[in-house]
Structure formats: C-alpha cells, structure tokens
C-alpha cells in the first residue's frame, strides 16, 4: 500500500485536518512547488495584521502558488492600504473572485462577512494573537499565527484548546522548525549520527544593536500612519506610541525575551527533546530606563535529557550586536554545533580527543560524513603564535576542526530575476499550506509550540523576583 497521500481537494481537507497529519513527511518543501492549483481549488486566505511582520509574511506568501488573498484586516488605514495594494499587485492578472481583497478594521466584522475563508495569517501584536487566533479557529479557519503565541500563558493555552476543540490546524510561527538546515541538523547530525556526543551545555543569544532597538515613530511621525485615538483605545492601545512600539509594554507583549528569545529557546527545547525543569534569570533596565520591559535578560535553564543533565544559557541584549548577533550553540563532548538563521553564522566544531585511537576513530567517522555529503569541511584558520605560549599550553585545548552544513535554504528568483535564498519564513508557511492540503504534518502546531514556549513565560517573573523557578507539570502544560 502506498504511503503517499492521495490528492485532496480544498473542500475535502477542511473537515479532516487532524487525520492528515499521521504518517506524513515532516516537511514537504517541494510539494507546493510542484503543485499547480486550478483557480477553483485555491486556498482562501485572510491576512490579519499588515504591519512590519505582516509584510514579511506576505513577501513569502506571494511566492506560494494556490493562494487567494480574500481579505486584509488591520486597524491602521495605512497598513490596510499597503496590504490590499500588495495583494492586488499579484492578483490583478488572475481570475479570482476579487482581485482586490476586501478590507476590514474589525476582525469580528471580517469573520461575519467573508464567506469561504480557509485560513488566516495572524501577525498582530502579541496581546492580540490569542483572541484573534481563537476567533478564527472558532469560525472554522485554519490559522498561522506569529510567535510568541500570546503575552500570557493562559492566552497561549486558549489557543491550543481552540485548535483542538475545533479540530483545526494552528501553526505557530517558529519558522526555524521548517528551515531545512535546522531540520537536517536535528534529524541527521544530532539524532542519527550523534555528532555532538553527549550534549552537556547549550548556549544561545540574540544581541541586537542599539540602533536596531530604537523606538519607531517619535515626534516626526508621519500623519498618514496615525490611527485615530478612539480606534486605538477600542483596540487596546493608549496612544500611537503603544501602537507602534507595543513590544516595550508589559500588557501588550513579553518583551525581548519573548520577542527574540522565543525563537531560540524553542530550539533548545526542540533539539534537547524536552522541557526544562527550572529557570533562573536576571535582567535590568540598564540602558533604556524608561521602558517597561528589561532591555537585557540572561536566563539559565536546567534540563534532564535522556543523555543526562544539560544547562542552557540564553541572553538577549538590546544594546549591542556583539558576539555575532544571533545563534544557538549545542555543546557536546564530541562536537559543538552552532545553528543560526543566517547561514554564514552557523558552524560545526569537532573536538580533538587526546587518545590517539579515539581521535583516529572520530576522524574516520567525520571524514566519512564529509565524503557522503553530510558535512563540509572549512579550511583551517592559521593558529596565532602566542608570545609566551609555554605557560598557557598546559591548560589549552587543541583548536577544534571547523566544519559547516553542506547547504542552505533553497533558492528562488526575485522580481528582478536575481537568484536569492528563499525568505526564512517561507518554508514554514509552505508547511502550513501543505498541511492544509493534507500533504504534510504541521512542523509546529499549537500544542507543541505551547510546550516549547511555556517555560519562556517564567523568565521575566524569575528575573523580577530574583528567584529560581522549579517548574511543575501544571505550569508547563495546557
């Protein structure tokens, strides 16, 4: 019996989304490329929130065949105009019901008015993620929602419950989960070939420069982007500053540890295959003293994995880009794998055992992996000559050999015909729509995303209380 899924029409999958997951491939990046949907079999999409992140997602969505952008919803007229314009620009030569998507300020009105919607892409501020997702799921739509799931853990729980109550797909935007480099690293290098040996420590950071951490807007705010005060207040914003810089406010977001850290702490939990058992964090308003959230946070997570104890350190700094920006590092007894969304930042370092037989066996294994295409060896960097090396050599480890992954994201042609890597979010969106068509399983459904995000909700409390938090099962489950 063939294990390949049978072709499924758009209307067939709507009622059978749960069943489609079992037994299917985790990722199917090529599936959508090959599919040429008839216009009658389009997936009808609503875009909810067309700010910066909404635009990032749309720039991926426009590359995915078979989508029809039926509606755009945003409380900002400026954003609405941009979103509708962007969708119209790619639909104007297609035979779709409305080349120009319908525009809405209010999601309830959109859901009550629009018929035939299949999916919603939610890129609103964090505190709206949960209400918007739940509304869409309850209306029978599948949802792709940006991370962090919510600004509160209860909001995140509601999303899982709504997805399961309605038996609808809900993918959370931890896009690294669909990145071929991350999937390959986890499944092939860590799991299958045990490249790291025993992972004892993990380390990750997102260090963002001061210039990239500045508020949006200010006194020179353009009149065309201003949202009327009554509308702002209706949708939970006190003023334009809150609307533009919601990431700075405690009631609207989880701050840098959630906004930036969620991506990478998710990788800790994914690669280590478990949730942490405790967190101890510290943070402060060291530079941006007027902001509600800490501008720098450092957190230590303790894990019990099948291999043994793992301590994972994470830092998010908004005042420096030092240390290579953002990456995750998994440090094992045999190798250290540093993953990063930017391919050039990633690297793999092999340890050098002192025992000659061990070294020989390790070299043989790694040479074999290079020969078979699993790894690419980087040319050795010249070793610096220390002036007084003698005193140091006693304590110094041999420099590790440096390797890299054999490739990266697939390439596409941009609108100028230039070959560029596929945008980082696109494989995750492709996975979502492939799952909608019954051709793949979600790579980060709401329940798995919750399990991964739950510990993050306790980082700020730990830093505020200056206390180590030992997790209970209830804290980390729905």
């Amino acid at each position, binding site marked *: 019996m063939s294990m390949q899924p049978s072709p499924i029409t758009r209307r067939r999958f709507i009622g059978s989304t749960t069943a489609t997951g079992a037994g299917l491939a985790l*990722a199917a990046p090529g599936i959508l490329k090959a599919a040429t949907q008839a216009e009658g079999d389009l997936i009808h999409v609503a875009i909810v929130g067309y700010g910066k992140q909404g635009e990032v997602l749309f720039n991926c969505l426009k590359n995915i065949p078979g989508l029809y952008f039926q509606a755009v919803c945003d409380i900002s007229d400026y954003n609405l105009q941009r979103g509708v314009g962007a969708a119209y620009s790619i639909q104007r030569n297609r035979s779709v019901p409305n080349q120009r998507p319908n525009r809405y300020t209010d999601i309830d009105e959109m859901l009550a008015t629009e018929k035939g919607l299949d999916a919603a892409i939610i890129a609103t501020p964090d505190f709206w993620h949960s209400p918007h997702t739940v509304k869409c799921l309850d209306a029978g739509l599948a949802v792709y929602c940006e991370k962090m799931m919510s600004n509160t853990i209860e909001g995140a729980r509601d999303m899982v419950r709504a997805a399961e109550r309605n038996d609808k797909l809900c993918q959370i935007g931890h896009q690294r989960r669909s990145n*071929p480099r991350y999937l390959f690293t986890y499944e092939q290098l860590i799991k299958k070939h045990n490249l790291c040996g025993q992972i004892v420590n993990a380390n990750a950071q997102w260090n963002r420069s001061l210039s990239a951490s500045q508020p949006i807007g200010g006194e020179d705010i353009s009149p065309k982007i201003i949202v009327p005060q009554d509308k702002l207040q209706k949708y939970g914003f006190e003023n334009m500053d809150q609307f533009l810089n919601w990431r700075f406010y405690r009631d609207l977001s989880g701050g840098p540890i959630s906004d930036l850290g969620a991506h990478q702490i998710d990788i800790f939990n994914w690669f280590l295959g478990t949730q942490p058992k405790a967190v101890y964090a510290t943070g402060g308003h060291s530079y941006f003293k007027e902001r509600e959230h800490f501008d720098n946070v450092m957190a230590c997570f303790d894990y019990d994995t099948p291999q043994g104890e793992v301590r994972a350190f994470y830092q998010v700094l908004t005042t420096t880009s030092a240390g290579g920006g953002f990456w995750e590092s998994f440090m094992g007894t045999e190798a250290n794998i540093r993953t990063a969304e930017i391919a050039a930042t990633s690297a793999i370092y092999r340890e050098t055992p002192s025992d000659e037989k061990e070294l020989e066996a390790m070299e043989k294994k790694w040479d074999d992996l290079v020969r078979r295409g699993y790894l690419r060896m980087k040319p050795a960097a010249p070793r610096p000559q220390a002036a007084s090396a003698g005193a140091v050599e006693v304590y110094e480890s041999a420099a590790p050999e440096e390797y890299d992954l054999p490739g*990266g994201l*697939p390439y596409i042609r941009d609108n100028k015909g230039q*070959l560029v890597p596929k945008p980082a979010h696109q494989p995750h969106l492709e996975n979502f729509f492939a799952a909608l068509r019954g051709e793949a399983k979600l790579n980060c459904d709401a329940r798995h995303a919750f399990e991964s995000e739950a510990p993050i909700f306790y980082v700020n409390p730990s830093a505020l209380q200056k206390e180590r938090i030992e997790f209970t099962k209830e804290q980390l489950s729905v």
Partner: protein
Amino acid sequence: MNTETESKPDTLALTFAAWLCRLWLAVRALQTGIEKFAGTEKASADVMIDGAPNSYGMEVETVDKFYALSNYHGVPPSMAETFSKEPLIPGFFLPIYDKVLGPALLVLGLTILLGVASRTSLFLLGVLYVSLTWGLILIGGQQGNSGVAWLAAHMILIVWALYLAPYNKLCLLKKW
C-alpha cells in the same frame, strides 16, 4: 663540405621556434578576446547526500560561466572607472577603446594563427600591448607594475616572432 654544412642555419629548428611563438601569441590574443564575452550566471543545485538529492530541500549556489555577445566588456568595469578619472586619457577615447579592444584581440589572434600578413599582425598586436602597458602605468601600484612586467614578456615574444618571420612557414598570406 663539412664546414659548409655546419655554417648553414638549422631552418627546421627556427621554423619550429617561429611556429611556437606564433601559436602562443595567437592563443593568448584569441582566448583573451573570447573572454571579453564571458559572463557568469548564478544557479542553484540540490545538496547531494549519499549520491542522491537530500530530502530536506537544502541547496547550494552554483556559478555557471557562459559566453554571449551581451556579456561583452572590453575594459573591466573596475579598471574603466579608474581610467575615467585619469586626466591623460581623453573622455571620448575610453568608450572607443572599450569597443575596439575585444574584436582587435580576436582579429589579430586569428590572423597570427592563420598566418595572414603575419609581420603586420604581430606589429599591431605589439602596438595593442603598448596601449595596455600605458594604461597599466597610469594605474601604477603593485597591480599596474606587475601588469607592465607581464606585458613586457609578451613584447619579447612578439619581437622574437618578428625576428623569426623569415622561417614562419605555412602562412595564408605571406605579404606584409
């Protein structure tokens, strides 16, 4: 008898020498001219693992070389920019030189290879190399100086080929 035989030049060796010089200079000019029409195109390829395309969709960027009339560049763009700032090079001269350089190398390479007006062709190739030498002197620095030395080696070969012209056999047009 013996004395007469020994004083005769070894014409076969000189002919071989002429042919080698001719061949080297012709190949050098022809291929340099052809390369003026070379360009690159980026493409992507599947990462191969265990001899088969990987199942994750990982790709690598490849750069493929191809030739087309539209790729033509007489003077490399980086050098053209430098030359455009040189007060001794008239503004009108550079675009003309840019257009002429590639075809001139191709024509002279071909005529030298086929033996068409070999002496004149060699002389004109020498003049062309003098013009390139002048440009490299203007650029100066290590790049310019090493380029001048490199072209000087070409000039020695051209002069040597001219010296051997009487022994240059198998020519389509011996005149000039």
